[in-house]
Structures are given as structure tokens and as C-alpha cells.
């Protein structure tokens, strides 16, 4: 007999009965009058799920994030570590009315920040009138003197902001920090949303949740309108080493923008250009994810290796708009929080709609005394820090206690450091339910809210990003400290109609064209193709070696020795079962792939990582001979998988051509070397079979020639055949057809140097005589193919 279904109310009660929100703080789910109504529909559905179903659904969300390749990188003393994106699956729910209040307050704050920035880089009234202490500006490394007096082309310093906000015990919201330099997280918010929707698919209702896509589209259009000229829009990233590089690549792909690094750009006169495979193209707006000081070694930090010399000149000339303006990061200064409320009164003529964290600058006598007297209730740290209050460094005292080595006398320390310190009230945040595997537990929560400037003013992204602490402590919010991230749903009383922002068809939508492949990206794709092919070649060689070794049991067998010698000539050791060089080659491929993640399918990336993981897993346990041969055979499937993805799934953009040219060239060149070694007249008996085996053409040979291998059949099949994808000629033909489609290959019937050279090689092979293909000719052919690589590099990749 089936048990009686519990009623929805009973299940809901059971779900939240064990939820013990701390007494003295606000809670997102439980308001002063009990369960907040905005949570009820969601929780009623959630309560119907048993634990196994919850686990299954959460796993579905996580699987999505893994498949999408979402990761977060952080740097620690031992180097960089990549972590899975830590999604706390239960979203934070907010009602539309409350959200309207938040959005209005943040729009006001965005206007305030814009006014302060314009003043700091313009008239300087705030300091002159005593609203802001001069020391906080003049001694602030984030105030960039070369930009003083430079007005952005669009007239605005700030175009994209984020705010960290928290809820006080009394239920009101307050701002903990403003992000103006290069706010991150908007792309992650999109991924949070997708993963959370997967987790809470049917029967959960989504039609009342405000969508996020409209925000991005509105901002994309606004950037188009903010350009000073009709040059391209691109995202400027510090590169794959950055913590949030995934997001840079993700947003670039999502919005159809080029993802560029400083070295992709040159400044010709005062115009910024991106070096592409189709030549230099003007760029007029950069969405900057690179800290300003690194942007131009000539005028900003001269130690920067990732900047573009002359960038500031281009800004000064009004030819380049940056989002946000160089120098806008100064607004993140912690000590500014102490002065912004008064500045708001003066600049906006009204109070801040949402207060910011109470802050006292120790450069003022009364404030310093107050901080000393109340140190236990404060976080005391560097006044000019641009970090958020809870991102405490070792020189920060929290509630009177230091993270690092403590001074003997806190009061004396504060007095001595004076204006270099700032005190901020200890933060008390609200809690929100997080699933701990068995039930819902209250955890501190902080929202990150994004605002973008559009033609109609500041547009606030409705939800998307919350940080959840791992423990009750507010300092546990940072991702490094094991915090997690959750989606934020802003729920309407009515179904939300499609996107919340109307598309504006009259605004030109600028999409990256097919030929706009930056040279550096092309270079990485080309080398990705080469390395992956090289990996495959190495595996085949090593497998041939270990098969022979297993067969003869002797390293001095002539065939074994011949393979060893050939491997050696390529710099590959034959000793270990799985050579170190294999690991290096895969590593090189991964590094190339990492730099072009915006142009490359997550599946291809996953395939490469899986190949590397498989190799590392097997390496310590595999012995030589038969065991090694089998392990290598398995790895071969991994490379085949990658090849399949590239061939079947990758859009035939210019980038795909470079990747494919890389593979073809590497394969052709390697085969020329293999034939010179194993199809040589001096090669030991059995070498022809080795060549055919490495060329994966054993079956084909048997079917085509009906005889044992001999020198002519091997050369015919692996060098001159136009239907065998392992032959040199086949791959050169592939190259020729790819090169023909590259920009500038054929200008009014006149072929480029590269196109001509490839055609010449192809023709030579098509008309070659088997008998004439001796070792010297094969070696010369190998060099000729290497020369094609140099021609390609000179024409497109530098």
C-alpha cells in the first residue's frame, strides 16, 4: 500500500522547520513575519523533491558548468590553480518591488561615481572645496596623472559598474564596495543562470523571473553608440593567466566581440589597430578587463609587459573609448567611502538612497580617535586599498585582531600610520538558505549587482550573482576562502514577457566579420593544430617502438633501434613507456588552446584536457613493451576524438583554417621524415611495415597492392597518393585548398607568395616519379614544407 502523499504545506513546513536563521541578522527567506511570500512557490516545489532528486538535479547543474568549461582560477604561492565554478544551487529570491528600490539607489550611486571621476580628472573642485582630502588623491597610485585633463571621447568615464551590496539586520540594504576598474562577474552571472535553470527545470516555473539577456544586449548596443569612430569593439584581457579569463572569453563569444591582449594592438599615429590575418584594422572601443596601470607601458607602468604603447595617446586624441576610462579604478579606494555620502549631498543635492558601509579615515583627528576607541567593532586596513572590505590582507585588523603579525599596541599603530589607515564597521550580512546535503542552512550572502550605461541611462542587471559564505563568518565569502556563488532571481508578480529590454533595430549591430581573426589568435590556432598532430605522431611512433620491443624483447634489434633513432631525431625519448615529450607536447597544445578559448568549442577543450589527464593517470604505472603499446593505443583514441570535434563541429571560420593548416602541415612534414627514415634503401628489414603502420595504412596497403610492402608501394601510398589522408600529397592538397581561402591569397588572379609556394609543392608531388623519391628528395621535401610554415607566419601570424 502506497504511503499517503504529504500535502504541499506539510512538506514545506518540514523543509523550513529545521532552518535556524541567526537571531540578530536578517534572513532572505524568513522575514520578520515568517516565510517571505516571494519564496513560497519555489519552496513548495522544492519541498516535493526527495534528497536523491535534489542530488540528481544539483549534479545536472554542475554537469552543465563542467561541460561549458566554467572555471575560476586563483593564484597562490604554489602557482595558479583552477577550480570548478562553485555554484550554490539554491538561488537567492527577491521580489520585483524590492529590486526596483535597489536598482534606483544604484543608478543614483553610479551617477555620483561618474561625477566624482569627472571631477578628479577634471576641475578638481572636490579637493579644492575640502570635500575630499588631497592626500587620498595625490598619494593614490590609482589616480593616473597622465589622464588628468583628458575627457573621454563619449563624455563618460564610467560605462560598466558593479556594486557589492548586503542587507543589514534591520532589513535595509547597504553598499560594501564599488567596482569601477574592471568589474567581473557578469558573464559568470549568465552561467549561474543557465546552470540554475537546468537544476530547477520542470516543474519549477520560470516565467516570473526577470531575464538577464536584455541587459547584455542593451549594453552591446550602447557600446556601439559610444564609439568615437566606426572602428571595432573588442574586449581587452590580460590573458589566460587572469583569474577571470574564462569570463572574458565567454563574454567575447556571447557578444560576438574580439578578445584581445595588449600585444594584439598597435597604435599607428594616434589610432589603435588590431593586427589581424587580413591586416591591421581600426579599433575604437575596448571593454577593458585589464587594470589600467598595465595598459600602456609608455605612459603608465613602464614595467608592464602586457600593455600597448601609445594607448593613452589614442585616448587623448579622442580616437579610443575605454570601458571604463583609464584611471576610473581610483573610485574603488576604500577611504572614499568615508566621504561619498557628503559628496552626494553636494553633487547630487540629495542623500544617498542606499548608504554605504560606515567608514572613518584615520587621517582626520576625530575620526582616528573614534577608530581607536572602537577598534573591536571595525575592520581596519589600508586607506588606499582598492579591495572589498572582506578581502582582508595581512595588514588588516578585523575586530581588533590581525590576520598577520599584530602590533603590540593597536592604538599606537593606528596613530602612527594615521592617514594610511581606514576603519570600516564590522559587516553583518543577512543569511540565505544553502543546501548542505540534508537540508537548508542559513549562510551569509552578498549580492553583486551590475550596471551598464545605455542610451536611456543606467541599466541595472536584474539579478544573477550572489556570494554565499561557507561558514557564518563574513570573511568566508571570498571564493578563495571556499565561498560559493548563487543565482539571484528577481521575481515579478506577473509573467515576464520575453526580454525586458526592447531591441532597438535602428542601432547598428556590429558583428565580428569572418576575416577579423587577430594574428595572435591565428598563431595559436595554427600551433594548436600542429601540436595536436605532433602528439598523435609521437604516440604512433612510441607505439610502433613498444610493439617491436614486445615482439623481440631486445632494444638492439635493428628495427627497434631504427625507431629509437628516429624518435631521438625528433627530440622524443624512447626509454620510458610514455615519453615526457608527449606530456610537453600536450601541454603546449593546451596552452595554445587556452589562449583561444573564445574561438574554440568547450568540447574541444575538454577533449584536450581529458587526453592530458589520461596520460598523467597512466604514466606512473605503465611498463615498456606490450603494456605501453596498449596504453598508447588508448591515448590515440583521445587525439582522434579531438580531430573529430574539429572536423565535425567547428564552424568554418578563418580560425578553423589556421588550425587545419597546422594539422595538415605537421602531418605532411612528419610523414616526409618517417619515409626518409623507414622507406630508405638502407633501412633494416621490416622498416617498410613500420612506415605503413605509423601511417595507419596497413589495411589500405593490403587492399591496394595485394603484395608485401616494398619501397615503391610505401612511397606511392604515403607520399604520392591523392586519396590517402595519411599521404604527404593529400595533406599538401588540403593545405592548398585552405590557403586559397585565406585573405589576400588571390588578388585579381595574382597568388600570394604562400599560395604559390603551396601550389608548387603540390604540383611537384602530383607529377613526381616514385623511383625519384630517394632519402635526399624526402629530406628536401621536409625542409620545403617547413619553409611553408615560415611563409605562413610572415604573411599572417606576426
Amino acid at each position, binding site marked *: 500500500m502506497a504511503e499517503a502523499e504529504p500535502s504541499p504545506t506539510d512538506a514545506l513546513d518540514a523543509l523550513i522547520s529545521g532552518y535556524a536563521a541567526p537571531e540578530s541578522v536578517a534572513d532572505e527567506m524568513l522575514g520578520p513575519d515568517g516565510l517571505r511570500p516571494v519564496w513560497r512557490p519555489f519552496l513548495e516545489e522544492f519541498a516535493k523533491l526527495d534528497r536523491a532528486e535534489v542530488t540528481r538535479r544539483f549534479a545536472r547543474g554542475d554537469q552543465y558548468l563542467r561541460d561549458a568549461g566554467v572555471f575560476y582560477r586563483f593564484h597562490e604561492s604554489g602557482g595558479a590553480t583552477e577550480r570548478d565554478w562553485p555554484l550554490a544551487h539554491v538561488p537567492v529570491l527577491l521580489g520585483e518591488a524590492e529590486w526596483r528600490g535597489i536598482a534606483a539607489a544604484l543608478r543614483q550611486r553610479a551617477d555620483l561615481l561618474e561625477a566624482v571621476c569627472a571631477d578628479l580628472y577634471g576641475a578638481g573642485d572636490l579637493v*579644492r*572645496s575640502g570635500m575630499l582630502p*588631497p592626500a587620498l*588623491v595625490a598619494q593614490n597610485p590609482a589616480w593616473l596623472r597622465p589622464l*588628468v585633463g583628458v575627457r573621454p571621447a563619449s563624455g563618460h568615464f564610467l560605462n560598466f559598474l558593479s556594486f557589492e551590496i548586503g542587507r543589514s539586520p534591520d532589513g535595509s540594504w547597504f553598499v560594501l564596495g564599488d567596482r569601477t576598474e574592471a568589474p567581473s562577474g557578469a558573464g559568470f552571472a549568465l552561467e549561474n543562470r543557465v546552470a540554475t535553470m537546468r537544476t530547477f527545470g520542470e516543474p519549477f516555473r520560470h516565467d516570473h523571473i526577470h531575464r538577464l539577456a536584455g541587459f547584455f544586449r542593451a549594453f552591446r548596443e550602447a557600446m556601439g553608440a559610444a564609439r568615437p569612430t566606426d572602428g571595432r569593439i573588442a574586449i581587452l584581457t590580460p590573458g589566460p593567466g587572469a583569474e577571470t579569463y574564462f569570463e572574458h572569453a565567454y563574454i567575447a563569444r556571447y557578444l560576438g566581440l574580439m578578445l584581445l591582449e595588449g600585444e594584439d594592438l*598597435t597604435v599607428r599615429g594616434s589610432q589603435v589597430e588590431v593586427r589581424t590575418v587580413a591586416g591591421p584594422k581600426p579599433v575604437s572601443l575596448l571593454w577593458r578587463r585589464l587594470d589600467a596601470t598595465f595598459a600602456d607601458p*609608455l605612459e603608465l607602468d*613602464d614595467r608592464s609587459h602586457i600593455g600597448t*604603447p*601609445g594607448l593613452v595617446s589614442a585616448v587623448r586624441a579622442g580616437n579610443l573609448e575605454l570601458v571604463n576610462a583609464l584611471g576610473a579604478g581610483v573610485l574603488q579606494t576604500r577611504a572614499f567611502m568615508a566621504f561619498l555620502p557628503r559628496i552626494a549631498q553636494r553633487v547630487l543635492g540629495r542623500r544617498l538612497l542606499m548608504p554605504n558601509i560606515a567608514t572613518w579615515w584615520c587621517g582626520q583627528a576625530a575620526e582616528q580617535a573614534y577608530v581607536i576607541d572602537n577598534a573591536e567593532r571595525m575592520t581596519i586596513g589600508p586607506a588606499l586599498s582598492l579591495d572589498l572590505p572582506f578581502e582582508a590582507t595581512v595588514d588588516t585588523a578585523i575586530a581588533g585582531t590581525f590576520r598577520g603579525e599584530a602590533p603590540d599596541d593597536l592604538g599606537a599603530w593606528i596613530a602612527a600610520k594615521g592617514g594610511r589607515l581606514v576603519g570600516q564597521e564590522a559587516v553583518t550580512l543577512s543569511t540565505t538558505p544553502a543546501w548542505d546535503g540534508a537540508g537548508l542552512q542559513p549562510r551569509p550572502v552578498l549580492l553583486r549587482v551590475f550596471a551598464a550605461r545605455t542610451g536611456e541611462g543606467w541599466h541595472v542587471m536584474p539579478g544573477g550573482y550572489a556570494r554565499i559564505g561557507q561558514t557564518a563568518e563574513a570573511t568566508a565569502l571570498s571564493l578563495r576562502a571556499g565561498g560559493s556563488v548563487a543565482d539571484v532571481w528577481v521575481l515579478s508578480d506577473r509573467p515576464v514577457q520575453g526580454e525586458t529590454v526592447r531591441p532597438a533595430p535602428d542601432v547598428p549591430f556590429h558583428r565580428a566579420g569572418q576575416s577579423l581573426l587577430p594574428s595572435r589568435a591565428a598563431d595559436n590556432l595554427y600551433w594548436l593544430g600542429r601540436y595536436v598532430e605532433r602528439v598523435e605522431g609521437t604516440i604512433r611512433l612510441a607505439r610502433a617502438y613498444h610493439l617491436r620491443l614486445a615482439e623481440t624483447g631486445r632494444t638492439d634489434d635493428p628495427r627497434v633501434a631504427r625507431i629509437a633513432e628516429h624518435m631521438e631525431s625528433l627530440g622524443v625519448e624512447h626509454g620510458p613507456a610514455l615519453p615526457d615529450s608527449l606530456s610537453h607536447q600536450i601541454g603546449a597544445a593546451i596552452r595554445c588552446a587556452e589562449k583561444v578559448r573564445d574561438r574554440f568549442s568547450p568540447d574541444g577543450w575538454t577533449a584536450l584536457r581529458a587526453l592530458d589527464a589520461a596520460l598523467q593517470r597512466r604514466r606512473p604505472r605503465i611498463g615498456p613493451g606490450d603494456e605501453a603499446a596498449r596504453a598508447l593505443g588508448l591515448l590515440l583514441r583521445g587525439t582522434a576524438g579531438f580531430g573529430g570535434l574539429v572536423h565535425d563541429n567547428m564552424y568554418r571560420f578563418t580560425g578553423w583554417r589556421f588550425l587545419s593548416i597546422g594539422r595538415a602541415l605537421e602531418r605532411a612534414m612528419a610523414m616526409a621524415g618517417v619515409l626518409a627514415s623507414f622507406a630508405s634503401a638502407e633501412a633494416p628489414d621490416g622498416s617498410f611495415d613500420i612506415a605503413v603502420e605509423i601511417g595507419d595504412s596497413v589495411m589500405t596497403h593490403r587492399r591496394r597492392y595485394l603484395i608485401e610492402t616494398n619501397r615503391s608501394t610505401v612511397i606511392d601510398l604515403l607520399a604520392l597518393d591523392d586519396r590517402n589522408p595519411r599521404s604527404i600529397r593529400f595533406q599538401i592538397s588540403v593545405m592548398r585548398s585552405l590557403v586559397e581561402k585565406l585573405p589576400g591569397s588571390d588578388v585579381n588572379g595574382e597568388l600570394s607568395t604562400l599560395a604559390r609556394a603551396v601550389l608548387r609543392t603540390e604540383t611537384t608531388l602530383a607529377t613526381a616519379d616514385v623511383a625519384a623519391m630517394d632519402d635526399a628528395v624526402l629530406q628536401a621535401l621536409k625542409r620545403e614544407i617547413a619553409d611553408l610554415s615560415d611563409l605562413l607566419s610572415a604573411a599572417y601570424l606576426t
Partner: protein
Amino acid sequence: MTPMIYDLRVAIRYDYDAPSLNARNLLRVMPMNRPGVQRRITGALSIEPGPDARSERQDFFGNAVTEVIFQRAVAALEFTTVARVERRPPPERLDLSPELDRLRAEISEGRDLTASSPHHFLGATPRAGHSAEIAAFARDTAPAGGTALETVATIGRALHAEMRFEAGATDVDTPPEEAFRARRGVCQDFTHVMIVALRALGLPAGYASGLIRTEPPPGQPRLEGADAMHAWVRAWCGRETGWVDYDPTNDLMVGTDHVSVAHGRDYADVAPVKGALRSSGASHSNHAVDLVPVI
């Protein structure tokens, strides 16, 4: 002291092993005008080979900056400044500078952020960061209850006694603390160390680049630093006294033997040539300077 008129020549040459593409340089090599102190009578900067673009502007600190761009490959670059400059002695004055406590109060009363405001010249700057060792030296050396001007002279003299002038002991990127620890260096090191020391006492201090006369007046010893561009310290000694120039390498208050080219917080603000070259090879540079009185 009577006013001096000098003919000045600064030639800076770079040779590149591999011709560099897209060279872009910022030059701060033109003697400045300082009302009442220094007047540029004539001045010209020539660049060989001729750049594809050249523009002039002033930087934040009022220095003349020339930006030059080469769109073709260049194997060598030579920048030559030729100028005639009148240099007047600073006015003779009594020491009206305040003691350091009073100086601090004067600073905090100021709400000015223009180029000569003392606020820019306190705290750490890229090439003159805090140093506990130099700060301790400064505290131990500073005269108790001394005026700002006395403090400048005392610290400067002490540093000159402690540190040895030695070309080649340091390079352009040597941090001040390292030079101080080794107790040797060139004018750039003397200047940075003294800037860090003065700032540690709350005395606003900055960097001056310029030249000193190549041959001394008859009967006087030759000054150190005459064979290349020179550097010295500027210190703000209160509202009444303003900025004073002090040369720690030669232990003297700057008079008519020096010609100023650029002012900044440290070397990074005034480097005579800032260049960005996309070149794979090495480069060699060669400086030649002359500052000769016009008879």
C-alpha cells in the same frame, strides 16, 4: 653669484641589433623655464632619422614632452637637444622654513592639487617606495627640532658622507634601498635615497633631472655627474620658503651650476627617453652632454 648663460647639448643615441618596428618614444630633454630662476633663450630638439610623427605637449608636472613615432624600421635613433639657457641664482634668504610638525600642518591645510602641490611628493611612488632602513637612517640623522631647510641640508650631507659615488655600481632600475644598503651609486641613487628619507620625515620631496656644468669655474673641483644627465632632490620647505633644490651627490644647495630639465616625483616621471620598441634584439645606448658657459 651672478646669472650664468650656458650653451647646452644633450645627445642620446640608441643602436639596435635588430631594426625595431613601430618605435614610439616620449622625450623629456628640453631645459625648462622657471620664472626668476631659469630661462630658455633658445632650444631645439632634433631627431635622426626624422620621425613619421612628432607632437609636443606638457605633462602633469609641466614638463615639456615630445612624442615621436616611427612607423618604419629603424636601426639607430639619435635625439639631440641644443639650447641656450640663462640661470639665475636663487634669492638669498633667511631660513624661514617651519619645524617639521608645523610643516605637516601647513601641508594638511593645503587643498591644491596642481603640479607644485606638496601632496604629490609624499608617500610611496613607483621608483621611491617606502624603506624601513632609509626611514630609520632619516630619523636618526634629522636634527631634533630642526627646520625643514636644516633637515634637508643635514640629511643630504649625511647621505653624501655615507654613500660613495661609483659609476656602474647600480643600474637604472636599482631600488633606493639596495643602493643605500650598498652605500654607493650614482646621482639617481643618491637622489632616490634622499627622497625616500625626506618623505619618511613627512617632508615632501621630488626628483629633478638636468645638467651640471661640464668644467668647473677656475680653481674649483669638477662636480660629479657632469658626464651624463644629472639628478638632484627638490624639497618643499613650507609655504614661505617653497621648493628648494639640493644636490646630494655633490652636497650643495643648487645654485647657478645646474640647469633643470624636468621635475617629478621620481625618475619614472622624468626619464629623458621612454621608449617602447618591438625588437627582438638588444640595444645599446650612448649619452653625451655638455653644459658650457657662454663667455
